[in-house]
């Protein structure tokens, strides 16, 4: 079974985000980018499927700082092919453009399964998964937490609110939006990644026109108004915990 996993780099939300001088975009000069956490799960799910059923896993991504390390890490976990799209992605890629960037390569790879992250926190025009599925004429199912593969179809576990799971049969080829792998993404020691670096090859594919517009134009970005800000309890750990105990008591905890 051939599996393709497109991955995306997103701003690390642990860092402070700032808005640039245009007032309509994030300031990217200091932005720390990390892999979308759901893509880590998509990679894990792909590797699990390969371990169980054999096949080939291809990771695809648009060039970004730190991407090569992530690609080699995926290779160390068991990914077979690494594809990097190169070009000027300065302003970032909207989802429609990303889907278009991926579509030709996907047609060429002919994967049975495309696993995307269910969503990224910074998109404004929907997720790539369903867009790509429609472009390729494949079915899409998102919020997937677990995939098993009995043949020309897969059995997926789709999450609904309240912990309800729907078991859904999906005919292949298909695109799935992965919310969580069946098991937490595995840890790979750096020495193993170093080994892979000397053998694994990253295939580069230039993207001539990253296709800018998705028809959604931003006029302004701002931080949410601190409407009802919390009362911050000041002082040492000693003092703060005393105050917390008082709050607990006031609200009937004991």
């Amino acid at each position, binding site marked *: 079974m051939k599996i393709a996993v497109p991955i995306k780099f997103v*701003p690390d*939300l*642990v860092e402070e985000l700032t808005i640039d001088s245009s007032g309509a975009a*994030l300031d990217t000069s200091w932005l720390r980018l990390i892999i979308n956490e759901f893509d880590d799960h998509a990679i894990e799910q792909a590797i699990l499927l390969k371990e169980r059923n054999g096949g080939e896993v291809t990771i695809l991504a648009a060039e970004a700082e730190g991407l090569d390390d992530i690609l080699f890490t995926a290779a160390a976990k068991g990914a077979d092919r690494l594809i990097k799209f190169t070009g000027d992605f300065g302003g970032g890629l909207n989802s*429609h453009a990303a889907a278009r960037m991926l579509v030709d390569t996907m047609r060429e790879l002919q994967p049975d399964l495309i696993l995307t992250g269910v969503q990224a*926190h*910074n*998109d*404004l*025009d*929907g*997720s790539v998964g*369903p*867009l790509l599925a*429609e*472009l390729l004429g494949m*079915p*899409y*199912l*998102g*919020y997937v937490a677990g995939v098993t593969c009995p043949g020309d179809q897969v*059995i997926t576990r789709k999450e*609904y*609110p*309240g*912990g309800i*799971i*729907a*078991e859904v*049969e999906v*005919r292949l080829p298909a695109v799935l*939006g992965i*919310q969580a792998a069946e098991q*937490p993404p595995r840890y790979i020691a750096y020495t193993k990644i170093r080994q892979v670096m000397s053998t694994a090859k990253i295939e580069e594919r230039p993207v001539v026109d990253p296709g800018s517009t*998705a028809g*959604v*134009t931003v*006029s*302004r*970005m*701002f931080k*949410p108004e601190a*409407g009802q800000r*919390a*009362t*911050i*309890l000041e002082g040492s*750990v*000693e003092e*703060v*915990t005393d*105050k*917390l*105990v008082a*709050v*607990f008591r006031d*609200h*009937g*905890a*004991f």
Partner: protein
Amino acid sequence: MGQDVFVVVEYLRREVSDISYVMLAAARQLAQGCGGNVVAVLLGQNAKELTGSLSADRVLYCDHPSLADFNPDAYRAVIMNLVKEQSPRAVLFGHTTIGTDVAGLISEGLSLPLVSSCLTLGADGKFISQICGGKIMVEGELPAPSALITVVPGGYKSEEGKASKPPEVTALAAPALENLRLALKKYIEPDAGDVDISKASLLIAVGRGIQNKDNLDLVNELAAATGGTVCASRPVVDQGWLPTTRLVGKSGKRVKPKIYLALGISGAPEHVEAIGESDVIIAVNTDLNAPIFNVAKFGTTLDLLEVVPQLTEKVRQIQAS
């Protein structure tokens, strides 16, 4: 092009989801601006009675066996047909396990622009979306003449989308729904063996700030001392540190405790949407900019690994005396 605003109604287990009412409230704003009607679109089988409380000028109801449960292929076919025929000003979907599965397909299928994570819609055609875990708001003009939108909760109260008088319902013919590529096999219920966090009155909630599984012991001790129940954000559950039954949020449970103590939780929208009915939220988070402080009543920016053991100790002393 029409000026009507369509809302694709969502429900689970024959209960209309809150997001449907939130969407109806948003749609009303936009419809007032463009002079169109709010049209609720309901897909199902024998589900007509679900329309009763929808605050819409009209309901289009499509009844078909393949629509008995959510199926992205079937929804895609029905909605694509309808939108192609009627060219509404906008179609609202939930930014949910249902809506986001379909909106993207239709966006590419009909070459319509898509605005996601929309919090509010104005009569002036402006949208505000919420991105980056609730840390950034984005304002823009809704693309014309027709646009698709996925709506997140938080911009409107669900009451605003409820009506006391049932709306007029018109039947909508289903297109051919054979050869669907997806099929629901069964639902799997959450494990009923564990405690029900939605009933707990004191919740000790733990997030990624806990850093590793061993540190959970500190939280368990605090829970034991206070008689509270431990619950968690998604990353903690995805790491396998706590069972899914303890998950609070969009994909987990909604909770309404007297006290919700959030330890090392950033307050992402998918988490916060499920804790709004708590009497009081207390946040322990080292990042003063974390969105959790916008919903918490009290907070501290001290390290949870320092706060929790001391708090446990103090509670124990009180309980002993």
